[in-house]
Protein backbone atom coordinates (compact mmCIF):
# COMPACT_ATOMS: atom_id res chain seq x y z
CA UNK A 1 0.00 0.00 0.00
CA UNK A 2 1.13 3.58 -0.64
CA UNK A 3 1.07 6.09 2.24
CA UNK A 4 1.50 9.85 1.92
CA UNK A 5 2.21 11.77 5.12
CA UNK A 6 1.47 15.38 5.98
CA UNK A 7 3.63 16.90 8.71
CA UNK A 8 2.35 20.18 10.13
CA UNK A 9 4.73 20.95 13.00
CA UNK A 10 8.46 21.47 13.45
CA UNK A 11 10.73 19.06 15.31
CA UNK A 12 11.25 21.06 18.50
CA UNK A 13 7.84 22.08 19.84
CA UNK A 14 5.53 19.17 19.10
CA UNK A 15 5.89 15.40 18.93
CA UNK A 16 4.19 15.35 15.52
CA UNK A 17 7.31 15.06 13.34
CA UNK A 18 8.72 12.22 15.45
CA UNK A 19 5.40 10.37 15.26
CA UNK A 20 5.34 10.86 11.49
CA UNK A 21 8.93 9.69 11.12
CA UNK A 22 8.35 6.56 13.23
CA UNK A 23 5.13 5.84 11.35
CA UNK A 24 6.95 6.16 8.02
CA UNK A 25 9.72 3.84 9.20
CA UNK A 26 7.25 1.25 10.49
CA UNK A 27 5.27 1.40 7.24
CA UNK A 28 8.40 0.81 5.16
CA UNK A 29 9.47 -2.04 7.46
CA UNK A 30 6.08 -3.65 6.84
CA UNK A 31 6.67 -3.56 3.11
CA UNK A 32 4.53 -0.52 2.32
CA UNK A 33 5.73 2.45 0.29
CA UNK A 34 5.91 6.04 1.48
CA UNK A 35 6.40 7.88 -1.80
CA UNK A 36 5.91 11.37 -0.38
CA UNK A 37 6.01 13.31 2.89
CA UNK A 38 4.66 16.85 2.60
CA UNK A 39 5.76 19.51 5.11
CA UNK A 40 3.33 22.33 5.76
CA UNK A 41 2.80 25.00 8.46
CA UNK A 42 5.75 24.95 10.91
CA UNK A 43 6.47 21.48 9.52
CA UNK A 44 8.74 23.24 7.01
CA UNK A 45 11.25 23.60 9.88
CA UNK A 46 11.99 19.88 9.51
CA UNK A 47 13.97 20.85 6.41
CA UNK A 48 16.25 23.48 7.98
CA UNK A 49 19.86 22.38 7.60
CA UNK A 50 21.02 25.14 9.96
CA UNK A 51 19.24 23.40 12.82
CA UNK A 52 21.73 22.11 15.41
CA UNK A 53 20.22 19.92 18.11
CA UNK A 54 22.41 19.11 21.12
CA UNK A 55 24.56 15.99 20.89
CA UNK A 56 22.24 13.87 23.05
CA UNK A 57 19.12 14.78 21.03
CA UNK A 58 17.97 13.08 17.82
CA UNK A 59 18.57 15.04 14.61
CA UNK A 60 15.29 14.70 12.80
CA UNK A 61 16.42 16.82 9.84
CA UNK A 62 19.13 14.26 9.12
CA UNK A 63 16.91 11.27 9.92
CA UNK A 64 14.39 12.42 7.30
CA UNK A 65 17.21 12.88 4.81
CA UNK A 66 18.50 9.36 5.42
CA UNK A 67 15.00 7.91 5.10
CA UNK A 68 14.57 9.73 1.80
CA UNK A 69 17.87 8.42 0.50
CA UNK A 70 17.40 4.81 1.59
CA UNK A 71 13.76 4.41 0.59
CA UNK A 72 13.14 6.96 -2.17
CA UNK A 73 10.85 9.12 -0.09
CA UNK A 74 10.06 12.44 -1.79
CA UNK A 75 10.30 15.10 0.95
CA UNK A 76 8.39 18.18 -0.21
CA UNK A 77 8.41 21.52 1.60
CA UNK A 78 5.49 23.84 0.83
CA UNK A 79 6.79 26.96 -0.91
CA UNK A 80 4.21 29.35 0.57
CA UNK A 81 4.61 28.08 4.15
CA UNK A 82 8.40 27.94 3.69
CA UNK A 83 8.71 31.47 2.33
CA UNK A 84 6.84 32.88 5.33
CA UNK A 85 9.24 31.11 7.66
CA UNK A 86 12.45 31.74 5.74
CA UNK A 87 12.92 28.14 4.61
CA UNK A 88 14.43 28.67 1.16
CA UNK A 89 16.71 26.67 -1.14
CA UNK A 90 19.94 27.89 0.46
CA UNK A 91 19.09 26.46 3.87
CA UNK A 92 17.32 23.36 2.63
CA UNK A 93 18.73 20.11 4.04
CA UNK A 94 19.70 17.21 1.83
CA UNK A 95 16.81 15.08 0.64
CA UNK A 96 14.20 17.87 0.70
CA UNK A 97 12.82 19.93 -2.15
CA UNK A 98 10.56 22.98 -2.26
CA UNK A 99 7.37 22.86 -4.26
CA UNK A 100 3.74 23.92 -4.29
CA UNK A 101 0.70 22.86 -2.31
CA UNK A 102 -0.51 21.09 -5.41
CA UNK A 103 2.00 18.37 -4.50
CA UNK A 104 -0.05 17.65 -1.36
CA UNK A 105 -3.26 17.24 -3.33
CA UNK A 106 -1.40 15.13 -5.87
CA UNK A 107 -0.10 12.91 -3.05
CA UNK A 108 -3.68 12.52 -1.80
CA UNK A 109 -4.73 11.45 -5.28
CA UNK A 110 -1.77 9.21 -6.02
CA UNK A 111 -1.59 7.17 -2.80
CA UNK A 112 -3.97 4.92 -0.86
CA UNK A 113 -3.85 6.87 2.40
CA UNK A 114 -2.93 10.36 3.48
CA UNK A 115 -2.05 10.46 7.18
CA UNK A 116 -1.72 13.83 8.90
CA UNK A 117 0.49 14.60 11.91
CA UNK A 118 0.32 17.93 13.67
CA UNK A 119 -1.06 19.96 16.52
Amino acid at each position, binding site marked *: MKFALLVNEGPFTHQASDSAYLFAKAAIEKGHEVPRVFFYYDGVNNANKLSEPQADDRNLVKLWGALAKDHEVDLVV*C*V*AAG*MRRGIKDDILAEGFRIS*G*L*GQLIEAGLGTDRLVMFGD
Partner: protein
Amino acid sequence: MAYEVGGQTIEADEEGYILNINEWNKDLAAIVAKEEGVEMTDEHWEVVNFLREYYDEYQIAPAIRVLVKALKKTMGPDKGNNKYLYELFPYGPAKQACKIAGLPKPTGCV
Protein backbone atom coordinates in the same frame (compact mmCIF):
# COMPACT_ATOMS: atom_id res chain seq x y z
CA MET B 1 14.62 48.07 -5.81
CA ALA B 2 12.18 50.93 -6.31
CA TYR B 3 10.20 52.66 -9.05
CA GLU B 4 10.16 56.43 -9.65
CA VAL B 5 6.69 57.58 -10.63
CA GLY B 6 5.94 61.29 -11.06
CA GLY B 7 8.50 62.26 -8.43
CA GLN B 8 7.32 59.61 -6.00
CA THR B 9 9.41 56.59 -4.98
CA ILE B 10 7.57 53.27 -4.76
CA GLU B 11 9.47 50.48 -3.01
CA ALA B 12 9.56 47.01 -4.55
CA ASP B 13 11.23 43.70 -3.77
CA GLU B 14 14.24 42.40 -5.70
CA GLU B 15 12.01 40.87 -8.37
CA GLY B 16 10.03 44.07 -8.89
CA TYR B 17 6.82 43.35 -6.96
CA ILE B 18 5.77 46.50 -5.13
CA LEU B 19 5.78 46.20 -1.34
CA ASN B 20 2.66 48.22 -0.56
CA ILE B 21 -0.23 47.37 -2.85
CA ASN B 22 -1.98 50.61 -1.92
CA GLU B 23 0.73 52.63 -3.67
CA TRP B 24 -0.25 51.24 -7.07
CA ASN B 25 -1.46 53.53 -9.85
CA LYS B 26 -1.78 53.34 -13.61
CA ASP B 27 1.42 55.28 -14.25
CA LEU B 28 3.30 52.78 -12.12
CA ALA B 29 1.69 49.89 -14.00
CA ALA B 30 2.96 51.33 -17.27
CA ILE B 31 6.50 51.61 -15.90
CA VAL B 32 6.47 48.05 -14.54
CA ALA B 33 5.11 46.80 -17.86
CA LYS B 34 7.91 48.53 -19.74
CA GLU B 35 10.52 46.83 -17.55
CA GLU B 36 8.81 43.52 -18.26
CA GLY B 37 8.93 44.21 -21.99
CA VAL B 38 5.15 44.33 -22.20
CA GLU B 39 3.47 47.02 -24.25
CA MET B 40 0.16 47.76 -22.58
CA THR B 41 -2.87 47.60 -24.90
CA ASP B 42 -6.56 47.69 -24.00
CA GLU B 43 -6.46 43.90 -23.79
CA HIS B 44 -3.64 44.04 -21.26
CA TRP B 45 -5.54 46.59 -19.19
CA GLU B 46 -8.62 44.36 -19.21
CA VAL B 47 -6.64 41.61 -17.51
CA VAL B 48 -4.85 43.97 -15.12
CA ASN B 49 -8.11 45.64 -14.12
CA PHE B 50 -9.74 42.28 -13.60
CA LEU B 51 -6.89 41.25 -11.29
CA ARG B 52 -7.23 44.46 -9.28
CA GLU B 53 -10.98 43.98 -8.87
CA TYR B 54 -10.60 40.33 -7.96
CA TYR B 55 -8.00 41.18 -5.36
CA ASP B 56 -10.19 43.92 -3.89
CA GLU B 57 -13.01 41.46 -3.46
CA TYR B 58 -11.18 38.33 -2.30
CA GLN B 59 -7.86 39.63 -0.89
CA ILE B 60 -5.88 37.11 -2.89
CA ALA B 61 -4.67 36.73 -6.48
CA PRO B 62 -6.77 34.32 -8.55
CA ALA B 63 -5.49 30.94 -9.65
CA ILE B 64 -4.86 30.82 -13.40
CA ARG B 65 -7.82 28.52 -13.81
CA VAL B 66 -10.11 31.04 -12.13
CA LEU B 67 -8.68 33.88 -14.21
CA VAL B 68 -9.23 31.99 -17.45
CA LYS B 69 -12.74 31.04 -16.48
CA ALA B 70 -13.71 34.54 -15.42
CA LEU B 71 -12.34 36.05 -18.64
CA LYS B 72 -14.24 33.45 -20.64
CA LYS B 73 -17.41 34.44 -18.85
CA THR B 74 -17.02 38.20 -19.29
CA MET B 75 -15.16 38.43 -22.59
CA GLY B 76 -15.92 35.23 -24.44
CA PRO B 77 -13.95 32.10 -25.34
CA ASP B 78 -11.54 34.02 -27.62
CA LYS B 79 -10.06 35.73 -24.59
CA GLY B 80 -10.79 33.13 -21.95
CA ASN B 81 -7.99 30.70 -22.64
CA ASN B 82 -4.40 30.10 -21.61
CA LYS B 83 -2.96 30.79 -25.04
CA TYR B 84 -4.46 34.26 -25.18
CA LEU B 85 -3.10 35.12 -21.74
CA TYR B 86 0.37 33.89 -22.61
CA GLU B 87 0.33 35.96 -25.80
CA LEU B 88 -0.36 39.04 -23.71
CA PHE B 89 2.06 38.11 -20.92
CA PRO B 90 4.72 35.84 -22.43
CA TYR B 91 6.50 35.14 -19.14
CA GLY B 92 3.34 33.90 -17.47
CA PRO B 93 0.10 35.72 -16.66
CA ALA B 94 0.36 34.87 -12.96
CA LYS B 95 3.77 36.45 -12.53
CA GLN B 96 3.79 39.27 -15.08
CA ALA B 97 0.19 40.39 -14.91
CA CYS B 98 0.18 40.31 -11.10
CA LYS B 99 3.39 42.34 -10.98
CA ILE B 100 1.95 44.97 -13.32
CA ALA B 101 -1.30 44.98 -11.34
CA GLY B 102 0.64 45.57 -8.12
CA LEU B 103 -0.55 42.37 -6.45
CA PRO B 104 1.65 40.34 -4.10
CA LYS B 105 3.93 37.81 -5.75
CA PRO B 106 1.95 34.62 -6.41
CA THR B 107 3.44 31.77 -4.41
CA GLY B 108 3.28 29.54 -7.45
CA CYS B 109 1.51 26.71 -5.75
CA VAL B 110 0.03 25.20 -8.88
